[in-house]
Structures are given as structure tokens and as C-alpha cells.
């Protein structure tokens, strides 16, 4: 069999590593085999490519503080400000959920770096809420990481004549993706994209070609990576209207989100919806913004719309379930979580949530088995700590304070920075009259998390010496 045919077949089967290997062999025999070269580039790229329109990258996250237009935006117009106000406004907190570390607001943990592998990571509300800052600068190193697994880099960027490749339209795109995803060399990728766009516009002057959109998107991608978000927003506002792909809409909306203008992003999404009606990706973008703006009703109705078009959208199911759970309809939440299980989301978070739902719906016989399942499935330490923390709540609900105390102690053992568990242990200690210990635990809890309102409140109560049964548990 012709080795090149075999390579194409391997590529079709998504066996990229094998494909790349075969292509390398071909190229060793004949260094001028362009088709094999492209195929290898594509295979290597496909192995590590991810959908970067979905992910708010940590790099951009780090620059967003300076990219943001204003630090004090009017309430309801900024995702950053709304979290602040929610925390300050305790009067409204009775019906909205306080977003703390272990009780995230959303049903889905997004922006998670582990989601870059290709599948969208659906973790659960009570599951891992990894703080954004902790994800660190992993993404910017992603390029180098994947390179090291590749072991050999067959394209030496410094020696490539980019202008020459940019003129060849069939070579330029794979090369761009290789530079962007595999090498992580955004600077060269951007240069290539710029030159390709120029040569393209020279070729077909005046006639607007759809291919141009690819390069516009490519440039926007590179600019996001480089943190030049403002430049996208400022240079591309004219072309997102005539965008021919959803990528453009998503990219522009994303850049608006990075500079913290959710309303502008919302408008971009809505314009995109006019062009691509019923597009679930755009719809979920809208739903996420509503969620960030604390408009849970709007968010849930958008998620419901998504389910109409795509009934297996796990993000929508999980978010609606979380909404039901928090609005006092655990039965509905249970149904939805079971649906998630049926769809094959077989992980610790879902089981933990089902356990909590069972608890709320008085189906006590299912609580412990689900919890055990969750504990068996939990691999990461953080996750395990969360599940023990929730197990503590189950103990509390069943009146077994000793179980609760044990669970929370386990939580603290696994994750020493778990301030909520610390606070809860303090309350238990106070109930048993161990004032000194309780006080110390509260102070420890506050030192872990300064704005933990419950711990502050408890401490105040303790100071006032009327330590009645008013302590707050989280």
C-alpha cells in the first residue's frame, strides 16, 4: 500500500500519532513531498488543538485588570462588580446564593484548565471550584508542554520564510494552526496571519472573500493570546456584523468579556444569533453572561432554550439542575442529575449532587450509597475534600453531629485551606461548650478567607457573649 494513502487513512481514523510517524518516514525518503508535510502538520496540530473560543484564558485573565475600562462600573453591567455587590448585599442573599469557594454560583465550573484537552469538563456545582488564579500560567506553557511530548519539532520557525508560505493559501492555514497550537509561537503565527491576509487581499482585490474571515479570526485569536484585547475590540467592530462563522462572534464577545463589558458581549451574541439562529454555542454564551450578572431567571430560560435544540447539552442540564436545587425544587434537580448520569457523566460531582438532592427530597436510603460512589470516584484531593464537606452536611441533617464533625475534620485534613469546614467545626465546638477551641477555629477560618461573612458573624456573636443557638453554618 502506498504509505501516503495509509497516512491519510490513519488521519481519518484520528490516529494522529501513527499518522505523524508514517508521514515522517515519507518525508525522510522524499523531503519535497508537500502533501505528506501538510498531513503531518495537520496530524500534529489535531492532536493538541482545542477550541479556544470557549476558554477564557488565564493569560487574558491576568491582563484583564488593566484591560478593563472601569473599576467601578454601575451595578448590573459588570461581572466583576456584581460579585462584589452580591457579597455586600446580605439582604438579597437569602434568595441568591452566596458565591463562595465551595458553593459556586454556577452549575458548571468553567474556565477550567483541564477542559483544554478537548472535551468540555463538566464538573459539578458542589465539586471543584478551582480558583481562577490557581490555574496559573499553565496555558502559556501549553505550547512548550505539548512540544516536549512531541519530542521532535520538525518545523524550525526561525528558519521559515513566512512570507513565502503566506502566499500559498493551501499551506498557510495548517502552518498557522501548527504555530498557534503546537509551537505556541503566537508572534510568528500573527505575522503569518497578517501576511496571508495581505496576499489574499492582493489576489482578489475588492471582492470580499469568505476565506478572509478565517484570517481575521486567526488574527483576533493571536491578539487575545497576546493580551491585546482592546485592539480586537477596536479594530474589528466593523466586521463582526458581516461575520460568516460563529468563531468570529465568539471571539469578539470573548474579548468584550475580557475587558469586562458583558453588555457589549451580550449585544454581539444577540447579533450573532440573528445570523445563526438557534446556535447553541452562542446561546450558552448568553446564558453564562446572565449567570455572571446574577440574572438567574434569564440564564435558566436561555439554558432551557438550548435544551430545546440540543437535548444532550450537559452544561445546560447541569445549570438548570443547580438552579432548581437552589430554588427549593430538589426533585427536579434530581431528575436532571439522573439524566446527566444516563448521558454518561459518571463522576464524583454528579453523585455528590444526587446525594444532596436525595437528602433534600427525603430519600434517605439513596444518600449514603451515592455518597460512597462519589468518594470512590473522587481522585483529586480538592474534590475529595469537597465531598467530605458535603458528607458532613448530610451528617448534620440526620442529626448525627459526630459524623458531621468527623467528616469536616477529614475535609480539613485533606484540604487545610477549607475555611467553611473550619467555621462549621467551630460552631460544633461552641455548641458543645468548648469556647476556646471554637474561638480559635473561627479565627483560623477568618485567616483563611477574610470575607467569610458567616465566620465574622459567629465571632461577633461570641464576643457579645450571648452565644445562643444563632451560629451560622455554611
Amino acid at each position, binding site marked *: 500500500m502506498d504509505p501516503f494513502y495509509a497516512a491519510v487513512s490513519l488521519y481519518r481514523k484520528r490516529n494522529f500519532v501513527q499518522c505523524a510517524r508514517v508521514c515522517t518516514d515519507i518525508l525522510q525518503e522524499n523531503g519535497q513531498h508537500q502533501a505528506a508535510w501538510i498531513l503531518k502538520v495537520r496530524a500534529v496540530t489535531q492532536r493538541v488543538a482545542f477550541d479556544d473560543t470557549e476558554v477564557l484564558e488565564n*493569560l487574558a485573565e*491576568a*491582563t484583564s485588570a*488593566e*484591560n*478593563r*475600562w*472601569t*473599576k*467601578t*462600573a*454601575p*451595578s448590573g*453591567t*459588570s461581572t466583576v*462588580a456584581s460579585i*462584589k*455587590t452580591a457579597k455586600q448585599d446580605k439582604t438579597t442573599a437569602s434568595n441568591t446564593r452566596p458565591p463562595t469557594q465551595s458553593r459556586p454560583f454556577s452549575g458548571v465550573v468553567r474556565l477550567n484548565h483541564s477542559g483544554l484537552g478537548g472535551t468540555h469538563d463538566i464538573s459539578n456545582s458542589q465539586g471543584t471550584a478551582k480558583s481562577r488564579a490557581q490555574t*496559573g*500560567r499553565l496555558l*502559556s506553557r501549553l505550547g512548550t508542554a505539548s512540544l516536549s511530548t512531541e519530542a521532535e519539532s520538525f518545523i524550525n520557525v526561525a528558519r521559515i520564510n513566512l512570507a513565502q508560505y503566506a502566499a500559498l493559501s493551501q499551506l498557510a492555514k495548517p502552518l498557522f494552526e501548527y504555530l498557534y497550537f503546537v509551537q505556541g509561537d*503566537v*508572534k510568528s503565527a*500573527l*505575522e503569518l496571519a*497578517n501576511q496571508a491576509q495581505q496576499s489574499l*487581499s492582493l489576489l482578489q*482585490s*475588492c471582492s470580499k472573500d469568505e476565506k478572509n474571515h478565517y484570517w481575521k479570526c486567526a488574527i483576533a485569536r493571536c491578539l487575545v493570546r*497576546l*493580551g*491585546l484585547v*482592546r*485592539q480586537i*475590540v*477596536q*479594530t474589528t*467592530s*466593523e466586521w463582526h*456584523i458581516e461575520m460568516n462563522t460563529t468563531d468570529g462572534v465568539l471571539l469578539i464577545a470573548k474579548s*468584550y468579556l475580557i475587558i*469586562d*463589558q*458583558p*453588555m*457589549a458581549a451580550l*449585544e454581539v451574541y444577540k447579533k450573532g444569533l440573528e445570523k445563526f439562529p438557534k446556535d447553541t454555542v452562542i446561546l450558552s454564551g448568553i446564558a453564562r453572561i446572565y449567570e455572571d450578572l446574577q440574572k438567574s431567571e434569564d440564564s435558566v430560560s436561555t439554558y432551557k432554550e438550548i435544551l430545546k435544540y440540543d437535548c444532550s447539552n450537559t452544561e445546560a442540564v447541569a445549570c438548570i439542575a443547580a438552579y432548581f436545587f437552589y430554588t427549593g425544587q430538589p426533585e427536579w434537580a434530581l431528575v436532571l442529575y439522573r439524566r446527566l448520569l444516563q448521558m454518561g457523566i459518571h463522576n464524583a460531582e454528579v453523585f455528590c449532587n444526587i446525594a444532596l438532592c436525595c437528602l433534600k427530597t427525603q430519600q434517605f436510603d439513596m444518600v449514603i450509597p451515592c455518597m460512597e460512589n462519589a468518594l470512590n470516584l473522587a481522585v483529586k484531593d480538592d474534590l475529595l475534600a469537597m465531598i467530605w464537606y458535603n458528607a458532613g452536611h448530610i451528617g448534620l441533617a440526620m442529626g448525627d453531629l459526630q459524623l458531621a464533625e468527623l467528616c469536616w475534620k477529614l475535609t480539613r485534613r485533606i484540604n487545610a485551606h477549607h475555611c467553611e469546614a473550619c467555621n462549621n467545626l467551630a460552631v460544633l465546638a461552641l455548641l458543645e461548650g468548648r469556647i476556646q477551641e471554637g474561638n480559635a477555629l473561627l479565627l483560623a477560618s477568618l485567616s483563611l478567607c477574610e470575607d467569610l461573612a458567616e465566620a465574622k458573624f459567629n465571632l461577633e456573636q461570641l464576643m457579645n457573649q450571648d452565644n445562643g443557638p444563632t451560629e451560622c453554618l455554611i
Partner: protein
Amino acid sequence: MLTLVNVTELNLSVFPGQITICKFKENVDTGITSSYVGATSANKVFVRHTNPVQQDQIQYLNIDQRITTLCNHPVHHSAVVMGTASHLLVYDIAENRTIMSKEIENGVGAVVIGSFDEAGEINVIIGGNCFLQCLNMEGNERYWNVMSDQVSALALFDFDGDGHNHLIAGTDDGNLRLFKNGRMTSEIKETDAVTYLTALTDHCFGYALANGTVGVYHKRNRLWRVKSKNHIVALASYDVDNDGHPELICGWSHGRFDARHWQTGEVVFKGKLDSQHSIVALLVDDWLQMGHAQLIVCSQLGQVWSYLPSDLESTSLDRIKDEYATQAEEEAIRMLLIRKQNLLAELEHIRQSGPSTEIADEEMHLTLTHNQNNVLLQLEGGAMINAVIVFAEGLFANGESHALHYDPPRTSAGIPLPVQRNLAVDLHVNVIFGSPNSELLKVVEIVHPLPTFSRFKSVSWPSAENLSALQFRLMARLQERIQRIGFWIAQNFIVPPELLTSDTSIELAFEVLPWRTPLRMIFRNEGSFMIESDRLDHVSELIQHLATFFNVQHLATEIEIRDDHRKQLLELMEGVRGYQAIRQRLTVDMADQVNEIRNWYNESENARLMNDTVEMKRCYAAILSGNQQLVDLQNIRDSNYSELMKRLKQINLHVQHSSNCRVGKYQTDVIQASRQAIKAEDFEQLLKLTLHGIENP
């Protein structure tokens, strides 16, 4: 006639022309609140809320670009329109949302927003480095036009009374241009850079110049002007005496402001801020919610004074009518009194001197000629000239008059006139002379017109061996008799009349002062003419003047450019492309550098937490050198940017001149086609347009 109603401290310094008012409606039950929005020196915009938003009365917007101009939005009251050195941004403060942003390569110099011409929708007009651009609210370009210099002031108002607003633009070289439906309808030449423009009532508009002149135009005619040694820093129109006609309010650099009657320029009201405050802006807005717009005076230190007319209640039509009647009477009496005064003075004078005194009654003769480098005003007469005073608007570098005293008196005088621009002005020459043996002197005022092209010095036609080709050669056809062309030349040039006597053709050679660039014109009897010059702007000015004089609606021309100049032009245009590419690359390099520094910073934090001093030192050293590199990159970028600006301006000027070599639809077509060519970076096409115009419009 104005009463102070409110003084507010902003506690922020304000820059001239960079403050405006935005209005917010926070929720349904609270009313509208007004906030001052202004630029700071640190590339930020402050918003000073009347009600504190999130415990902070002052909100800062981080723009990251040098802000050149600010104004509010006529429909979205909570939005602010910002022009920066490279972008136009429309940002809604209440919704924290960018409504529109558009890259303006040439930089924004002035912005005006509103609906104008027949189109009912809101448009933004941007004036900048030799261009004028009109965008709709989606950011799409409606039209584009070239200007002769940096656009410094823009205003929208109805100057022809058709019920629609039109655009006026003022430039740094003192041109006022009126546009209608994207086409320039007329051009007025002023004497210095136009700094402010404001619309008044009844097809009038007020203007202010950098040299301290302020005045009012009614359509194309100037009603009045006043010149002061102080600078005007703000201009507004506000009805001070509540008579239904707004007065022109000028804010001066020394902290005074005055209201002048729109028709006569008479000062109606004077006001003064404290001595340490200088005015930076005048706004008219009902920001205190009093039901009547206030006149707001902003000082540099951020104090805001709000004024209202004092007799606001007594407004009635009758009162206005009465006032009109009395005004007319008063005016008549005043005129008569002045006449009486003059007559009395004359009588007194005659009585004193008596009839015996001999008064020199020789005539004075005025002629305009050229000497080596200047236009020369020659005075000749039988009497002895003691002194000469020449008044001419905008002719002399500092001031409007030029005085010469001759001691001892002489019979003839030559006064060099430093003519810098092609502008027809009237010279008011006051000659003081007397006879040698008389004590009394006589003053004669002579008005002599200075022709438009007075600085074109006529020289003899170069001999065949000296007849080198000039850079530009323009050819066109004009269906006029040669005598009429001779008449045009006689009226607008200083040319000895014997050169114009020929019936078949007129051949003239000039040197344009003060650079003495050669220029030749040949008009032939059959209707064709040719102009040769080294500078395209001279040619274009001649063509425009010729077209207005003979009322030519459309004129197509052919231009020839010598090869070396053609190469020069192409190099200029190629240079722009190169600079743009470099600019892009530098931006990316800087972003990359910033990311690198950020990484090093994180590393250093890690090292600090782990008490690894050696590593920490290494990181800080890396940050330091990275920072130095950033500074260097920024310097390179700055110089690159200014170079790019210079070239873009040259290209715009080139388009301006080449389009001005055509008239009517050929002119606008060339502008539009050039814009397309520049956008597509098709410089060959641009050059072709320069040479041949549009063949089939």
C-alpha cells in the same frame, strides 16, 4: 444679566475642550442625574457622579490612548464620544458598553456628532490630519474628504436655511469650509488657525481664531469681528438677555468671559472668574435640572460656575417687540450724534487754521510691483511723505497693521508686503504727508486691492536653453475668449498690461514668492491652456480660482509628472506601507515583552515566597532589563508613528491638490476614488488618478 446659581468643585483639573456632561437615569423613580465627564492627563477619562456609585463619586475610565477630544451623544445621553490619537470610541457609561469603536489611522483632531444633511440618522464626523470622515453609528464610512491642513474645529448648523444642518470645518491654515451632502459648497479664508466654531441663530455662526480674533458670519458674509491680544479658549452660544436670540459667549485665557450681540458684536455681558482660575470650557446644559439650560463655565482647576439669565420670568413677545423698536431708535440717534461730532470737529479745525494755510493737495499714487523677494507697495506723489500706515487683515505676521515713519520725509516710498498666502485683501493705506515748508500734515486714506495672486512675480519668458521641464504640467480646455482670460489675469495678478495684448495666446512666466518657484502659464486662443509648476498646490489654487471666476461647473484636467518626482511619490506611498507593517510588528513585540515581564514577576514572587534570594535577584534583574527594552520599543514606536503621520498627511495633501486640479464632479470623483485606492493600498492606481482623473465618471 446673568446670575450665578451654583458653584461646584470637581476637584479635578480640566483640559481645554475635554469636558462634557452625560446624563444618567438610574432607575425609574429617581430623576435624571448629570455627571461631568472629562479627560485626565494620564490617558483616562473621569466621570464625576452626582450620586456616588459604589462609594466612589469619581469613576475612571481606562482608555490607554491619548484623548484628543470629548463630546456627549445627542441620543444616548449616558454615552460619551471620545477621539484619541488612533481611534474613535463611543462608550455608554451607564451600561458599561462600547457602542462603537473605529480605528482612525490619521488620528482624531475634532469630532462632532448629530444628524445633518437630508439623512435623519445620527452620524459622527471626524476631522483630523488633512481629512474629514463621516461615519454612521455602526461604524461604516459614509464619506471621506480631504482638507488642506489639520482639522481643528467642526460644527453642524443650517447655513442655507433649508431646514437641515450642514457641516462646517475649520483648519489650522485658516480655511473655513462649508459642506453640503458631502460636497464642499464654499470656502472662506481666515487669517489664522480656526480654533472654535459654534452655531448661532438665523444662519449665523461664530468662530474664533488662534490669534485672538472672534467674529460672526452670516452665511458667507462676515457680520463683525473683534481682535484681542488674549487667546480665546472657549466659545458657546447662549441667550444671555433672554430675547430669543443667542449671544456669542467667548471665554478668554485670562479668566474673563463676555457675551456679545450676534449682530453687532457689542458686549452685552461681562463676567470674570477669580484671578487664579483660567477658563477651559463653556457648556450650555440644564445639569441642575432647573428647567432652563444654564451657562456653565469650567475653570482649569475644576471649578464649575453655573449661570442663568436674571430676568427669566419676564419673557414675553411684547417685551421683545418693544425692545426692537427702541433699539432701532437708539441706533439712529447714536449714528446722528456721531455725525454731528465729526462735523463739529471739522468746523473747529477749519476755523483754527484759517483759510490762509496752504494744504498740500497733491494726489498720491499707489502701485504694486515686485522687488527681488517681496511684493512692493509703491507710493508716489508730489508731496513729502512723513509716515505710512497700512492696514490689512492677516497680511502681517504680528498684528494687522504696519507703520513706517520717514525722517526726513521723502517723495516716494516702497513698502515690502510679506504676502504668504493667495488671498485677496483690501489694503487700507493711510499716508501722512505735507509740503516741505508747512507745519500741517494731511492724512489721506487710500483703499487699494491686493490681488489674489500678488505673490506671483512676473518674469520674462525663459530662453530656449533655460527652458527646463518643470515637475508638473497640467493641461485642460476652457471655452473662454482670450480677452476674458486676459481680464482675469489683469484682475488677479500683478502683470504689466503689455503682456496681455496678444490676440492669439497669452504666455506668462512667474516666480512664486517667497520661495521663487517657477510657474508658467500658456493660454491659447482655441481654448486649451497649460500650467507648469514645481508645486502642485499652486496649480490647484489657480484652477480653483479660475473655475470660480468663469463659473465653470465641471472641469477635467490631465496632469503630467516628471519621472523623478513620480518615483518620489511612489516611494512616499511605499514608505507608508512599510511603516504600517513595522507598527503592527512593534505592537506585537511590546505585548510579548509585557507578557515576558509578567512571567518574570510571577517567578520572582515564587522565589520570594521560597526565600530564594539568588533567584529573586536574577528575576528582578530580568524585569529591569525587560523594562528597559519596553521603553526602547516604545521610543521606536513613537518615532515610527510620527513618521507615519507625516507621510499620511503628505498623501492626504497630495490627494487634496490633485483633486483640486479638477472642478465639480471630477473633483469629488477623484477624492472618492483616491480614498478607495488608499484603502486598498493600490498606489499605482492613486498615481493614475492624480494624472488622469476619472475618465468615465
